[in-house]
């Protein structure tokens, strides 16, 4: 069953057809890998779906509702969350507050200005649980800006996860971290998808990671969808191997 469906979604930047009439489907409960070379339009597509950009044309339907014209805030309410390629955290706040804020926002509690945040046990407990799940509980009191790169990546995912989304976009969750750290990050991602009832779309450059963890893979090239299938099908797809995998390995 399709959780998200885009119909002929388009975004052009001048002459660059970043996303060119794309029909993109994400099914309930799957972990989808989104691949493509730099500039293929992956991030633009995610930006369109998450609401950072407005499409020039096309329709985005999420969980039965048309979200094309909705604000970021409304889409989050609907259940779309995302992380960022370049880590996007609240650096001057503690790790715990990064997650707690997300929960406050989700619960609509950020409107409260007459109660102390640290007195809200329910939120703090939940934040603690999330951090534990991501193995960050020992860093709870540190400033987010002081974490190591791998931990920052994890926290970035944790912040998005704390929104309890139905659909989670992870934009290169393992880029910039050592090979050794990649597996633990992806293990956590997989486990939250499997046990948390979350659907996830992972944009990735590391083909090992993609082919190991994805249920299904969509390959993009020059703003359009090149191929769509199981890891096996994609691996055997010649167009993908020549245009994408080859280039990735070379570059």
């Amino acid at each position, binding site marked *: 069953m399709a959780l998200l469906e885009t119909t002929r979604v388009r975004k052009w930047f001048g002459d660059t057809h970043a996303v060119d009439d794309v029909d993109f489907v994400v099914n309930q409960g799957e972990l989808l890998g989104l691949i493509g070379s730099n500039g293929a339009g992956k991030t633009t597509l995610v930006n369109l779906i998450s609401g950072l950009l407005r499409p020039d044309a096309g329709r985005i339907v999420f969980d039965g509702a048309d979200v094309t014209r909705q604000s970021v805030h409304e889409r989050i309410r609907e259940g779309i969350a995302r992380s960022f390629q370049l880590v*996007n955290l609240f650096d001057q706040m503690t790790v715990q507050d990064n997650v707690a*804020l997300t929960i406050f926002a*989700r619960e609509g509690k950020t409107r409260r200005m007459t109660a102390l945040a640290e007195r809200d046990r329910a939120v703090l407990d939940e934040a603690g649980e999330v951090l534990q799940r991501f193995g960050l509980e020992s860093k709870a009191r540190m400033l987010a800006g002081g974490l190591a790169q791998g931990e920052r990546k994890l926290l970035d995912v944790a912040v998005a996860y704390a929104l309890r989304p139905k659909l989670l976009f992870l934009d290169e969750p393992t880029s910039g971290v050592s090979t050794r750290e990649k597996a633990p990050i992806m293990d956590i991602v997989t486990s939250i998808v499997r046990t948390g009832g979350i659907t996830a779309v992972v944009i990735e450059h590391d083909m090992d990671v993609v082919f190991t963890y994805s249920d299904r893979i969509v390959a993009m090239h020059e703003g359009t969808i090149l191929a769509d299938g199981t890891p096996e099908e994609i691996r055997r797809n010649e167009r993908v191997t020549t245009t994408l995998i080859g280039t990735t390995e070379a570059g």
Partner: protein
Amino acid sequence: MSQALLASGRLLAGWRLAVGIAIALFLVLVPRLLPPFQTLQLSYGLIFAIAALGFNLLLGYTGLLSFGHSAFFGVGAYTAALLVKYMGLSSMEAFVLAGALASAVTAALFGAVCVRYTRIFFSILMLALSQVIWSLAFKLFWVTGGTDGLRVPTPTLLGGSVALGAGEDKLVFLTHRYYYYVLALFLVCVGAMWVIVNSPFGKALQAIRDNETRAEFVGVQVRKYRWIALVVSGTFTGLAGTLWVPLNGLTTPDILYWPFSGKIVFFVVLGGFRTFLGPVLGAVVFNYLETYAIGFTVYWQMVLGVVLVLLVLTMPAGLVGTLAPLFARRRRIA
């Protein structure tokens, strides 16, 4: 390990509480301990501190540098003056409520225009809007008295139960009853602001400050929260303006002109905008610095300028931001 950490945390909290109580006690005793002039100076300092607290909700916690806060201070002051002129009121409570309300409305209007922008654009837009208010106060002389300003006679406090007696020395009134009035409101403001910055709302503002895009993507409606922050900030600063009027006795367009906004920025940077109490200390210290610079030399602007330049070069974290870690380290070593 964690036990020890918790204990030391509790110790730290206890130590802070002790210092806080000691300072509060000192503030209460000031009229008995210090000469009237110093009490007056402190009244000014505390009032400016309220303005600075409000301002810093924007700069320190939301990441917006306003160069137009003179508008709110001035609106607070002019509201009291206009209530005197047109309604013959003299109750300080009426002034405070109306001043806070009027500055909140002004901030709401400014916010409707400004919160779409950040950084220098926000600063300059605030500057331009505050100058519009200034030119109104300046031009509508039949309402505002133009540059002659409007007089505000000594108000009555606490619903009229505390007032300046006939033939009584106003200085005594200002340095005792009015000082306590200011002190009480100051403590309320510090408490209220402390709760605000530590509330979920305050966390949301800090998130906006740190990372606007991500804040949007955890569901914080950035513009709306900026707008609320501006309204709260303007209300505090406006309240300060209202409290200032009885001390000055007259309000003129001076306090609406942009250099007064510069002064408020100065308070906060002097104290340190990354800390909660920095702006409070900065306002009090600046008030002394300015008063004595003016008393000491006709080149007082240069004195202030040199202080500002040195501050930016050598103490960007401000007084509290620079000194607090030093104290903390000393204690750790001891």
